[in-house]
């Protein structure tokens, strides 16, 4: 058995796994692996081999059995997301991806299947640094986004189409069966960056590609839907989200495909720099 330490801002966990799983787990969480035992560990997870399955325990309580290491990894990622959201206090946790360039962070938010992860993926391949996937924690006092660098899960047909147009250069893309691909970004930002822009992607093959500037009032209700349940009163969350949105450029990008997404991203990010 080997114990690995996963270090996020406001959350440190240990994960003890059988030797034969170490390589897969290390590869998956390479960007957050600590080199030595931290002083504080919020939760201790252990994986035991059980017949042909893998049993996951949290602080000695049994959570679930998985049939293979990838099922375990996907579920563990989700577990970490949920624990992180509970550990971040008054920070706002958006269901969003986030990248950075220079001292500016760009958050990509939206409902499921609107293109959050694909837009994040495209920005990473355009040379942006990786900050967050799935959960984007923002400190409303400073407006800074703290890294939560999970591996990106995308549809395989999408990444294959993207690859046919733009070879993957900035990370490692792997395929898991006919439907799923996983992307490990190459440029991972370890430090927080100031949130300057929030992008709301919207995809429809019939769209005329365009960028629409939004006001905080236009987007407040939607943005609140993209927040994980808060650890503070709703009103405090509302005030925090208002404050965050007032300090950002808010852009809806309507795209009809991968090329138009890239063109619009170039347009909005070059205008910001």
């Amino acid at each position, binding site marked *: 058995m080997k114990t690995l330490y996963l270090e996020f801002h406001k959350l440190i966990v240990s994960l003890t796994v059988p030797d034969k799983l170490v390589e897969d787990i290390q590869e998956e969480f390479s960007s957050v692996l600590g080199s030595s035992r931290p002083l504080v560990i919020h939760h201790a997870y252990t994986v035991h081999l059980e017949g042909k399955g893998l049993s996951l325990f949290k602080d000695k309580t049994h959570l679930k059995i998985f049939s293979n290491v990838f099922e375990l990894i996907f579920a563990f990622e989700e577990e970490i997301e949920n624990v992180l959201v509970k550990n971040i206090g008054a920070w706002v946790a958006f269901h969003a991806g986030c990248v950075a360039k220079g001292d500016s962070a760009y958050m990509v938010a939206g409902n499921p299947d609107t293109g959050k992860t694909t837009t994040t993926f495209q920005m990473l391949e355009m040379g942006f640094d990786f900050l967050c996937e799935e959960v984007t924690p923002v400190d409303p006092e400073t407006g800074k986004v703290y890294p939560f660098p999970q591996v990106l899960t995308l549809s395989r047909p999408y990444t294959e189409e993207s690859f046919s147009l733009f070879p993957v250069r900035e990370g490692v893309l792997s395929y898991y069966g006919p439907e799923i691909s996983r992307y490990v970004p190459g440029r991972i930002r370890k430090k927080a960056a100031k949130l300057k822009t929030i992008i709301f992607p919207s995809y429809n093959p019939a769209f005329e590609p365009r960028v629409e500037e939004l*006001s*905080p*009032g*236009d987007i*407040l*209700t939607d943005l*609140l839907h993209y927040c994980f349940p808060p650890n503070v009163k*709703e*009103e405090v969350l*509302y*005030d925090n989200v*208002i404050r965050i*949105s*007032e300090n950002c450029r808010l852009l809806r990008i309507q795209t009809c495909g991968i090329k138009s997404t890239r063109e619009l991203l170039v347009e909005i990010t070059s205008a910001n720099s």
Partner: protein
Amino acid sequence: MISSDKKYYIRSEKVTEKKVGTDIALYVEDHRSIHVLNPTARFIWECLKDPMSFDEILFMMSEVFDVETATLRNDLEETLVLFEEKNLVETRGGR
């Protein structure tokens, strides 16, 4: 249809007004909900600092918006119904 006589509307004391950029949002603590006002609703909300009847608000709107009275009446009816549904306003009988 809202009666045009003797019913007065006023902002609920349980509503907190919040500035959102150049817009206004209303937070209702009991419902833990928040509502961003469109320009018409915002104008009506501004009118309701003091108790006002439907006709009084309609008159104020006609002074400001260059829109047919029938349209204003519809907008006002819809907005007041929504305000009542969301507990943003209270209603009172005659003065």
